[in-house]
């Protein structure tokens, strides 16, 4: 949930820098250790006494397998079952989830009372059926973004999640869980950039998006992303994360979107553009320019916010601030680490930057497992920890106060603190933007985004 982030509205930058806390001191030395909960083992003589929760993954494509590999490192995860309608996917994934039951029918997972949480990583157009059934079966649900390929389906998912107050629903907008982003949010919203005037993001990767298939029937199922009938294309499958991330920092929803796209390079039977551009108009006149292509990898993936005092570039869980020559000195940047990009020098913005890195018995820095430093790791970790906490809170409430006080229970569960994550509302709103942006791209038009489209009634 993002209630804590919402409270950062109106955050005063001077207070952030001036406060007498240890956190502020660390910021002035170049980095701040946040309430950025990690799933790492606690320091000192305590073991990582993580309460485990049985979880299943439904959908074992490329991203489903990435989820399984990441869950293997999340202390709370006990991957009990995996599901895919394609036997080869099950077989390929089995070694990454040793001991997990394999099934082609997701309903067997939903019937298993021991499995408390499911991660839905099926093709987007299949999300609704699985998610609604999972919520009805009383499972905590992590649903990959975009939630659905249509606003109507996304709304059905979001409303069902909203009604399930005793369950955790998390949309797969993993940047919302990422410690670095949560560290940057108050900093940027406090006005550190001056007046924000522009935003830009890109995703460039030379790849066909086509998966080889052993037969024609499987071909269509495997390559659902290449058909307009089943895919929101680059803006929906990839751009939704970056647009949501940027809008989160700008603290607003887009008011209009214009788009263009075409198949520039991968001339096969696809009707989904392999190269797109979009301009999203945010409140306050801030335009976000977005482009994505499957035909070139230069500069990869990043987002930039441009302000009158500084720009901030975010890339691969790292961030740098580039100050204007006439912007006021904050003081701490003198001591902060810096990186040079061609002619520009970026000041590193990083959570925990001033803490000494952990070392092994020989005093050598310990390099973290790369899979534990990704936004997906944070998102899945927060999902399962929220699920553990909410389930425990419900059990403890009922054992302490009786199972008959349902209203009291639901009221209490609404107050249980949650770790940073995108909820049903954020997921729904991101889906609305994705659907309309894709429409704009396919029609080369400007579409006004009505505020009521983003409301859940």
């Amino acid at each position, binding site marked *: 949930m993002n209630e804590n982030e919402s409270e950062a509205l109106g955050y005063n930058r001077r207070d952030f820098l001036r406060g007498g806390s240890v956190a502020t001191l660390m910021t002035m030395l170049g980095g701040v250790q946040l309430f950025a909960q990690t799933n790492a083992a606690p320091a000192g003589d305590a073991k990582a006494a993580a309460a485990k929760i049985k979880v299943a993954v439904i959908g074992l494509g490329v991203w489903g397998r990435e989820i399984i590999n990441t869950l293997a490192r999340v202390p709370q995860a006990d991957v009990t079952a995996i599901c895919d309608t394609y036997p080869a996917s099950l077989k390929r994934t089995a070694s990454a989830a040793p001991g997990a039951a394999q099934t082609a029918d997701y309903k067997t997972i939903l019937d298993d009372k021991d499995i408390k949480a499911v991660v839905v990583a099926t093709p987007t157009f299949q999300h609704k059926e699985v998610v609604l059934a999972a919520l009805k079966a009383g499972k905590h649900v992590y649903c990959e973004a975009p939630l659905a390929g249509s606003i109507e389906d996304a709304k059905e998912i979001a409303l069902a999640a909203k009604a399930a107050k005793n369950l955790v629903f998390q949309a797969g907008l993993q940047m919302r869980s990422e410690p670095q982003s949560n560290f940057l949010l108050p900093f940027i919203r406090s006005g550190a950039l001056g007046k924000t005037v522009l935003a830009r993001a890109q995703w460039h990767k030379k790849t066909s998006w086509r998966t080889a298939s052993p037969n024609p029937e499987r071909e269509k199922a495997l390559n659902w992303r290449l058909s307009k009938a089943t895919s929101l294309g680059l803006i929906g499958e990839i751009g939704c994360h970056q647009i949501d991330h940027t809008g989160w920092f700008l603290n607003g929803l887009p008011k209009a979107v214009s788009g263009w796209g075409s198949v520039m390079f991968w001339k096969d039977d696809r009707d989904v553009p392999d190269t797109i551009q979009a301009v999203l108009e945010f409140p306050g006149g801030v335009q976000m320019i977005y482009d994505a292509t499957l035909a070139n990898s230069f500069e990869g993936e990043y987002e930039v916010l441009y302000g009158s005092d500084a720009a901030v570039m975010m890339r691969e869980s790292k961030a740098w601030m580039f100050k204007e020559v006439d912007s006021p000195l904050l003081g701490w940047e003198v001591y902060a680490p810096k990186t040079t990009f061609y002619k520009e020098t970026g000041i590193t913005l990083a959570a925990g930057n001033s803490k000494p890195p952990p070392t092994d018995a020989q005093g050598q820095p310990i390099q973290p497992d790369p899979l534990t430093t990704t936004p997906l790791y944070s998102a899945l970790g927060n999902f399962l920890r929220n699920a553990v906490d909410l389930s425990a809170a419900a059990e403890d409430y009922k054992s302490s106060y009786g199972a*008959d006080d349902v209203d009291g229970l639901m009221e209490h569960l609404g107050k249980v*603190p949650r770790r940073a994550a995108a909820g049903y509302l954020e997921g729904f709103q991101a889906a609305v933007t994705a659907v309309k942006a894709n429409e704009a791209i396919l029609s080369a038009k400007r579409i006004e985004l009505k505020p009521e489209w983003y409301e859940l009634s």
Partner: protein
Amino acid sequence: MGQTNNTNMKKRTIIAKTVALLLLAMVSLPAAAQTTTLAARSGSKMRIEGTSNIHDWQCESPFIGGMIEVGPNFPLEPGQAVTPGKVEAKGDVFIQVRSLKSIEKDGKPYMDSMDNVMWEHMRETENKRILYHLTELTLKEAPKAKDAPYVFDAQGELAVAGVTNKLSMVVNVLPLGEKKLKITGTTNLKMTSFKIQPPAPKIAMGMIKTGDDIKLIFEWMLAPRKTPGAAAN
């Protein structure tokens, strides 16, 4: 004719005795109903405060479960006249150890790693609950105002991390109307008295040493236990 008269007489006697017994039972029932059972209700809170060489700390749980059974001399309504002295009361209370979470001074969550350290030192895996058994309750004096609490001396046993100690403490009982109660109290304890070693986790800057002394502060809400199909007491 004489035998019929005798039979009728016997029947009337049996009926009269039966009615008398029934009347006696009806008179006795109110006395038996004067024992009231009250069950835990939401709105309760258990808070533990402690110290360390770095900073003071606190943790809370929103759950205090259990029940008390009280006799007729226990104050269930505001302003009820109660004679100072021992009152009939017994009770069992429990707190789920895993529901105790560390918090900042403003109530926001503090740190998962501190929670893990705390639970491990309380041997939560084997002892999932803190348990309190009330054995004796004595009213010290009647309250001076109608909305003032009744102050009791409570004797009982407290079990933490599998170790049980006798515990004497002062508790305040505030009737809220309709036999609902708010019971509050504070008591000072030492972790080591429950064979809990004050945690000393290592951190990047050195070691945190937790103080042995802790303070328990509780607010416990109770209401008559709901019995299916029965009228409220």
